């Protein structure tokens, strides 16, 4: 029952990685265990919690519901890829720090990627739209209050940057 391996190249946060994985290897496991990018977390492995959310060509997907081999040819962004080139926090990360949007931090990577994509889609969300944006992710610690605030704050930070540049 030994698994046939497939040699594939995964492009993650702008870097190409050559890996040899069985067909059944989940993208979440390939990122975490084969590439050592453990920032992507696994909370349920059945697509409900959103902790494993990564961006595939900019769109949020659940890495636990996808096979690694099927991510070939896509640009994958994980939480490790959200900081700025100079190492400082990106706007969504910054907003989470300012608003106390995390406690244990386990759900956080999935929120950060989801919100990054959400604000790219809709940079000026209403309060209701901020809540909607995170309505597919579970957090057991924060009661979501400060995460909603962080979405609003991130939108502000992004707008300020737009004005400054």
């Amino acid at each position, binding site marked *: *029952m*030994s*698994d046939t391996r497939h040699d594939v190249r995964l492009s993650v946060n702008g870097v190409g990685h050559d890996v040899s994985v*069985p067909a*059944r*290897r989940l993208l979440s*496991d390939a990122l*975490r*265990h084969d590439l*050592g*990018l*453990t*920032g*992507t*977390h*696994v*909370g*349920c*492995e*059945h697509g*409900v*919690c959103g*902790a494993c959310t990564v961006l595939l060509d900019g769109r949020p997907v659940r890495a636990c519901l996808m096979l690694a081999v099927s991510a070939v040819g896509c640009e994958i962004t*994980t*939480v*490790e890829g*959200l*900081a700025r080139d100079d190492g400082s*926090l990106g706007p969504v*990360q910054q907003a*989470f*720090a*300012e608003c*106390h949007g*995390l*406690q*244990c*931090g*386990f*759900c*956080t*990577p999935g929120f*950060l990627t989801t919100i990054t994509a959400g604000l790219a889609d809709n940079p000026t969300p209403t*309060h209701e739209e901020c*809540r909607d944006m*995170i*309505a*597919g*992710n*579970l*957090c*057991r*610690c*924060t*009661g*979501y*209050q*400060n*995460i*909603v605030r962080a979405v609003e704050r991130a939108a502000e930070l992004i707008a300020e940057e737009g004005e400054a540049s």
Partner: protein
Amino acid sequence: MTTKLMGTPVQRVEDQRFLRGHGRYVDDVAVDERTLHAAVVRSPHAHARIVDIDVSAVLDLEGVHAVWTYDDLAGLATPMAEPLPLLIPHPALTHGRTQYALARAEVNYVGEAVAFVVADDRYVAEDAVGLVRVDYEVLPPVVGIDRARAADHLVHDDVPGNVGARMEQKTGDVEAALAAAPHRLQLDLTVERSACMPMEGRGTVARWDPDTHRLQVWSSTQTSTGVRAAVAVKLGLDLGQVDVITPDVGGGFGVKINHPWPEELLVPLAARTLGRTVKFTEDRREHFISSAHERGQVQHIEVGFDDEGRLLALDVEFWHDHGAYTPYGLIVPIITSTQLLGPYKPQVYRVRFESLYTNTVIVTPYRGAGRPQGCYAMERTMDAIADFLDRDRAEVRAANFIQPDEFPFDQGLVFQDGRELEYDSGDYPASLEKLKALVGWDDFPAYQAEMAAAGRRVGIGLACYVEGTGVGPYEGAHVHIETSGKVKVATGLTTQGQGHATVFAQLVADELGVRMEDVEVVTGDTRRMPYAVGTFASRAAVMSGSAIHLAAKRAKEKALRIAAEALEVDERDLEIVDGVVSVKGSPGTSIDLGTVSVLSNPLRYAFDEASKAATQFSVGDPGRPPVAEGDEPGLEGKDFYSPERATFASGMHAVIVETDPLTAEIRILKYAVVHDCGHLINPMIVEGQIHGGVAQGVGGALYERMAYDESGQLLNASFMDFLMPYVTEIPDGIDIDHLETPSPLNPLGIKGAGEAGVIPSAAVFAAAIEDAERVALPDLTITAMPISPSELHALRQRHPQPRPHRQERS
């Protein structure tokens, strides 16, 4: 003077790594091709005898390294084959039972560990699990409190009536007091099971070092010292051979205080046997069926009261479902039975409970730990009394409050820590006034009438609680000022998201007079602090916070003494600001803490510029020993905090809900919290804890339940079916007001805050929903929680119905 950090909303230092994806949770440790992965064969039956286990097919599978069953454990020279420890024995727990690391002859819940497989990766390990053949002889299962009480079948043959424990406490002759009371009511209530459900499940990694004969274990636990002791005993190692490190933990909420889990022993055993690093990471289904649940109780209350609603006699009997085994003793039902009293002082109280076996997952503390059920019993009773007397619900509560001048107030019972239930401080009338103002209590009837006129049902509820926090026995801390001036702090209890690295650094920065960024806090690492208890019962801030404060004080005393000698001044004239010791009023005469640290450690060998100053030819009085008698080298402070008893936090919640007349949907319009945890260290973090607790409370009150069928299968063991709240289920905004009545029991005047948010939920929602429904159905009474729209709908269908509390005599 540096501005005090205590009481300010300092941003969290741990967030930096979490936000970058650089947290180190247990499954992130030892990410290496050579690490082996474990999976567990679990019982598919709630109750069965194991006839035979055949592992032969597994051994042929490529990539499998080992399989263990009970028989393999029995062959070991160590106590691995004995039952897991009963952590908290109690004289009333006459029939305590614990499971084996791997089931011996019988399984008692779906999910119980039967065999343990170690393979190259988790995929192969799970393939192997599928190839283990276990023959079972299925036995009749006992599911639910009613079946357990009926005792037609037994969970354990040698436990008659399925009763693990019977316990009673009383403060007087309740029957006489009931008989003499002008009014009496009875209530019958139930609460369902729920569970902690941290986003990260359990997990353990172990590595055996054959060169040093030492075992290193990482576990997602709430007690690293507890796991260390258990692993050492079970593997036959000296304590000194075992290190347990708690990495970042993705939430605990109670479930990770129970230990050792079977895998916490089996992983180290496998690592030692195979000479390889071994990892077990629980998946979500496993968390549902093999970790722990809580909350399930059936309650019967009889109460006698006067015309003002004052409690003259309170007689409570309840039945607590503790699942298949009792590793955590009677802590949960003891807390229910004592904390039920809340801020009130019944003239006579009696409580009796039975803790019952069922063929379901074990029950150990979940945030609140029995208090939500106690609060529910007490507050439903208050509502019933108010209803009976036709008085305002807030007024009836106020009539029963312990008054501010009555502290310390002894309730006359024994608490969960074996100490008297003596409240240290509080101001319940002030809390109630704040809550009424915050939620708009007095204006609500007009609003309700206005909405009713428009065909809408809105209702309000309130609930009060008192929470014993910061139970002993102790916690300790070690503060080390390095020669760089950086301060390294260690305390032994663990962290699961409470921001300890921040709040403890605040305390140290304040006490020592150093910059917060120079303070680094380590928790839950037995190499750094081998004496500790754990993180539970809202105790971390109180226990470790106090210990850290005391340890920092000691380090400061030493720093001042050495600096005074070096500067040739009186130490009383010195102060420390931003890491520099100087004479008050003449900042020119100063020495930085790093240099003081250098001076504190007389050296033979210089290793850098700074240390040259501490070598024997540079410092010291040739006429005296380099380290004075009674002194120690190094600039360190160590201390322990061990209070006589718990400190009692309190609070009150109110909620306004709207119920849909057609769909029975329940909408939260406003949620208000008044919270008193004494002095706040970091209000931002305390509010975060409240938010999280309220959200779990909403889940527990409206959505979450463990849906066992009668054969003991958990039907909703996934996030698809167990309805944990998303943002869409949580109120948009939680109004919080604080009251700060300091605790006299610890140097900082603090009380615990971690569990508070969840305690009143079942009570407050039952009250509000009932109030809303009574707009249309004046007799509708809520006696079972949680309540979903379909249950509310069913309740409406049964209307009109007799109230569960009936008047016996007036």
